[in-house]
């Protein structure tokens, strides 16, 4: 019987995988961002689990950092999203192909 930490880790892994699939499959930039958020949170969850395993606060500390970072990231992300919509009148990533060989 595996301990709870590893259970949570599995959950986190599943979340992470889901996020990844989301990033891969969604064409809309916003949804991609959301999926990335999911992945980040999955990582955070994993940290919490680890922290609980070792009975340390570090895991949760790390989680806070992650949240902050995610927030910053998303804010810039959304700013860019606005710009993109402003310029391309779409949020479809497959239209963003100006830069290429």
């Amino acid at each position, binding site marked *: 019987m595996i301990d709870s930490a590893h259970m949570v880790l599995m959950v986190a892994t599943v979340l992470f995988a889901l996020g990844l699939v989301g990033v891969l499959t969604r064409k809309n930039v916003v949804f991609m961002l959301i999926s990335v958020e999911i992945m980040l949170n999955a*990582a955070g969850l994993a940290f919490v689990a*680890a922290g609980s395993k070792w009975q340390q606060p570090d895991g949760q500390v790390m989680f806070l950092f992650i949240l902050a*970072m995610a927030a910053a990231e998303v804010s810039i992300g959304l700013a860019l999203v606005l710009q993109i919509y402003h310029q391309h009148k779409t949020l479809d990533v497959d239209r963003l192909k100006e830069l290429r*060989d």
Partner: protein
Amino acid sequence: MTHLQFLALLPFLILATAAIVVILLIAFKQSHTVIQITGFVMMCGVVLAMWYVRDTLPREVPPLLVVDGFAALFTGLIIFSVLVVGLLSYIYFEEREENPKEYYILLFLATLGSAVLTISRHFVSLFIGLELLSVSLYALIAYLRNRNNAVEAGMKYLVLAALSSAFLLFGMALIYMETGSMEFTAIGRALETSGSSVLFLMGIGLIVVAIGFKLALVPFHLWAADVYQGAPAPVTAFIATVSKIGVFAVLIRFAQAVHLQQNTLAVTVFTVLAIACMLTGNILALMQQNIKRLLAYSSIAHFGYLLVAFLSGDAGVGPTVFYLLAYSITLLSAFGIITLLSTTRRDADDLSGYRGLFWRSPLMAAIFTIALFSLAGIPLTAGFPAKFFILTAGVQQNMWLLAVVLVLSSVIGLYYYLRIISTLFAAPPLTSVKERTLHPFFYAATYTSLVVLMCLLAWLGVFPGFIVDQVQAFLQF
């Protein structure tokens, strides 16, 4: 936190204040020039502080940071690069329509992040530094939102970077799960006691992914070309030098802590990556007509070379530093030329724009040529001893496969460098180059700094001995 530790962190604190100072200046509606100069002074302050605290080194700041000669070297490298980037930025942004001021905040924040990476000995500090770096980079890349697809570049970088940091975090989590610590050294120790489990290895793998992404190692390199092309020239220079230097520093530190080079698995992985980088980078660049993209590809190849030094363990640190130094000087002078030639409308990144540059403005062409020769590793330029030392390190560890691949791929590389050079020297087109109105002082300053860079390249190429000794001395403590 003792006084000494505080002292040791002084340079980084100054770096941090630089950003704040800029914010204040902006608040007081100071002009671009003022900001520029202040930033310059602050950076010099950082260097001075570094010099001032040098004999208190090395100094641990547990649990997160350690300031030692290694860190000092890399930070110095970073600051040096930022100085030049800042100078270029002025020229570049001076007569752009956008307001360039906030740019400097981001610049210094990113620098801080990269500097923090060099002194981090803990996952948290690693994470903070990395994110500081990348978050400010998102903004920097997309800073000129209406010019050559900056936004697209920024978006691509953002999504991929966020992705990679997700991987990084997850990897960290796994390792933390296994070892119960987030200090590199502790991890190393835990590893020796309780061998490496699957989870741990996966953790390492995921971290490698993140690092590889930042260093644009194959196969995580796909963003590089687009971002290089989309970002403003100075920012591109920044990405190519500062961010990569920082990341490479932390990679080395981490590897030393957990003895990555003893782990056959990691060695195999990095060997494959190195070979892939060297070949892919050079082959991609072969027919590239856009100089910024071409430099992106060549930088991929160059980090492939660096991995060879990295793989040769502690013997490779010295060569790595030298190589990074030569490499950043070279790239900065190259991007300096690009910046100088860029117009208000678009960056001068099309090779055809460089036809016969030598006969129009010999100095620029000479600088550019020497930079390219240095990238190609031709003697009389810094690139040659750099590549030579790396080869030395590689051969010393009997990594013949890597050595041979390095040689062959650099022959391939030679072709496209020669292609650019022969364009520079080709018969000039009839169209005359446009005149630009610039603050003469900065114009002169930029020119002189570029000339200085060129001289540095030549000097390093002919007498590398001095620097080599210095580096060794620094790495001692």
